[in-house]
C-alpha cells in the first residue's frame, strides 16, 4: 500500500499533527512533547524569538533537521506588520515558510480576512510558502488558494478556547472544495476533537494549548498523535455516515 503522506507545497510529511510552541512551561518540556507527538512541523511565534541571541531563544531547542520550523506572524494587526515579520524571519535564515496570522482582535485572536488575503498575495509573490490562519470561511479559503497559498488553516473555534469544532458546516465545505491541504487550526482541546477533524477529511491539525497546558504535555502529545492517526485511518477506511434512522446490522431482504 502506498504510504499516506501529507504533501504541502514541495514537502512531504508522514505526521499530520502540527504543533505550536507557545504556552509550554519550559523549552525542555516543549522538546519532549515535540518528540512524543511525532510531529514534523512546528510553528514558532517570531515575537517570542530573540533572533539576535541564537543561544537563548526557543529555536535552539528545536532540531531543524527533524522539524520544519514554521515561523508565525502572531501579534501582527495588519498585512503590513505580518509581511515585515515574515521578511525578518527569512532575513535571519529561517526557511521561507510562514504561518500567516493577522489578528487585530486581541481578545479572541480571530483573523482578519481582508488583511490576511492582502498579506498572502504579497508574500506568495515574494516566494514564501504561505499557510494562512483563517476563520472557517469557504469563499476566503478559495480566494487564498487562488492567491497561491500552500494550505488553508481554518479555525475550529477561538484559539485556546478548547471548544472543539464549532465551525463544522463551513469546514466541511472548505474541505470539499479545496485543492490544497486543509489544516484545522485552533480550538482543538482534546484528542477526540482532533480525531473528529481528521475523520471529516482535514489533511492535518495544529494543536498547541491542549498539549502545552496539559498536566503532562508529553503524554498528551502522544495521545494527540494517536488520535490524529486514528481519525485519518477512519477517514481513509470510508466511514459509514451517521443516521438518525435505525438500520439493521444484518440486512433482511423481504
Amino acid at each position: 500500500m502506498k504510504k499516506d503522506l501529507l504533501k504541502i507545497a514541495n514537502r512531504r510529511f508522514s505526521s499530520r499533527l502540527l504543533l505550536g510552541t507557545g504556552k509550554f512551561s519550559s523549552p525542555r518540556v516543549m522538546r519532549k512533547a515535540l518528540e512524543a507527538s511525532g510531529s514534523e512541523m512546528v510553528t514558532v511565534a517570531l515575537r517570542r524569538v530573540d533572533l539576535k541571541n541564537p543561544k537563548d531563544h526557543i529555536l535552539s531547542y528545536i532540531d531543524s533537521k527533524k522539524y520544519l520550523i514554521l515561523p508565525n506572524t502572531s501579534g501582527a494587526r495588519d498585512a503590513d506588520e505580518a509581511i515585515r515579520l515574515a521578511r525578518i524571519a527569512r532575513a535571519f535564515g529561517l526557511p521561507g515558510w510562514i504561518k500567516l496570522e493577522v489578528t487585530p482582535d486581541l481578545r479572541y485572536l480571530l483573523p482578519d480576512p481582508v488583511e490576511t488575503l492582502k498579506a498572502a498575495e504579497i508574500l506568495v509573490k515574494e516566494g514564501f510558502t504561505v499557510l494562512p490562519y483563517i476563520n472557517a470561511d469557504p469563499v476566503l479559503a478559495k480566494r487564498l488558494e487562488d492567491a497561491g497559498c500552500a494550505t488553508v488553516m481554518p479555525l475550529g473555534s477561538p484559539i485556546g478556547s478548547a471548544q472543539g469544532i464549532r465551525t463544522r458546516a463551513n469546514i466541511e465545505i472548505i474541505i470539499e472544495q479545496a485543492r490544497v491541504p486543509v489544516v484545522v487550526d485552533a480550538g482543538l482541546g482534546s484528542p477526540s476533537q482532533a480525531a473528529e477533524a481528521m475523520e471529516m477529511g482535514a489533511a492535518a491539525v495544529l494543536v498547541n494549548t491542549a498539549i502545552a497546558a496539559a498536566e503532562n504535555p508529553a503524554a498528551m502529545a502522544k495521545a494527540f498523535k494517536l488520535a490524529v492517526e486514528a481519525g485519518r485511518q477512519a477517514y481513509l477506511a470510508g466511514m459509514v455516515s451517521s443516521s438518525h434512522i435505525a438500520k439493521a446490522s444484518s440486512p433482511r431482504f423481504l
Partner: protein
Amino acid sequence: MNFNQIMEAARQETLKHFGRTVQLYTPLYISNHCINSCAYCGFNRRSEIKRITLGLDQVLKEAEFLRRQGFQHILLLTGEDRGAAPVEYLEKVVRAVKELFVSVSVEVYPLSEVEYKKIIDAGVDGLTIYQETYHRPTYKRVHPTGPKKDYDWRWGAAERAARAGMRKIGIGFLLGLYNWKYEAAALAEQLQFLLKNYWQTQFQVSFPRLNPAETIFKIKYPVSDQDFIQLLCRFRLRFPQIGFTLSTRERAGFRDKIFPFGITQMSAGSKTYPGAYALGIRSGKQFEIADRRSPREVARALVRAGYEPVWKDWEKVLV
C-alpha cells in the same frame, strides 16, 4: 461554586489562554518631580524627598543595567510635573531607550490624544494608567490639589491613548482606597466599555494594593490576601483573555502562591525611585516594595512552579 472551585476554574482559564508562561518586566523611574498631592503617594508634592529628573545619559545607564539583567520589556515612570518632565522629554527618553528593549511602556501623567500619538511615534507601545479609585467622593478626598484632581480627564486617558493607536493599555485601581467590590465593578465596566469601543487594543488589568507598612497614609478599606485572591479569580473568570499584572508591592511568598490564578505579567527586581539601579542616587521612593528578590530569583521561582519566565514577547516591527 465554592471558593476552591472558583480558584481552580480561574487557574484553568489562565492556563488555557496563556499557558504555563509569565512575562517579566521592570519599572524604570525617570522622574519623581510631582505637583500633585495624592494622599497615599511618596511623590506627593508635600513630601520632603530628594527630587530628580534623570538626564538622557543617566536614563541610558539605568536602562543598560536593566537590559544586562535580561529585561526586554520596560516600563518608564514619572510623577506629574510637565515642567520637570514635559512630553518632549518623554519622547527623547523613549527614542534613546527603545534601541535596548523590544517593548517600551510608560506610566506617566495623563496626556492628550495628540501627545499620546507623539510618544507612540517615539516608540512607546504600552501605557499604564490607573484610575486609583472609581469612587468619586474618595477620588476627590485623596487627590485634593494638582491636575490629578480631574477625575474625568484621568478616566478618559485610556480612551485617548487607544484612539491615538496605543497597542497595550493597562488599567486598574489602587486597592485600599475604597470598597474593593465597588471598585471591581467599576473597573469591569470601564474595561467592558474599552473592549467594545477599541477592539484592536490589547487591554490589561493590574491590582496594585496599598501596603500598610509602606506609608503613614491610613488605609480605610484594607484588602486582605483572601479578598485579593477572590478579586483576581473573579476577574479571570469574567475576562478570560485579558492579561493581568502583579507588581512587587506584593510579598514574594504571596506572589509565588497566587500568580497561577490569573497573572500573566510580573515585575521583578523593581526599585521605585529615579537613579536606583546603576546610578546609586538615593532619591525619594514612590512606594515601598515587598518582593525584594532579584529578577533571576523571581525567574527561578517561576521555573520551580513549572512556568516559563518570558523575557521577550514582542517584536519591534509591531510598533
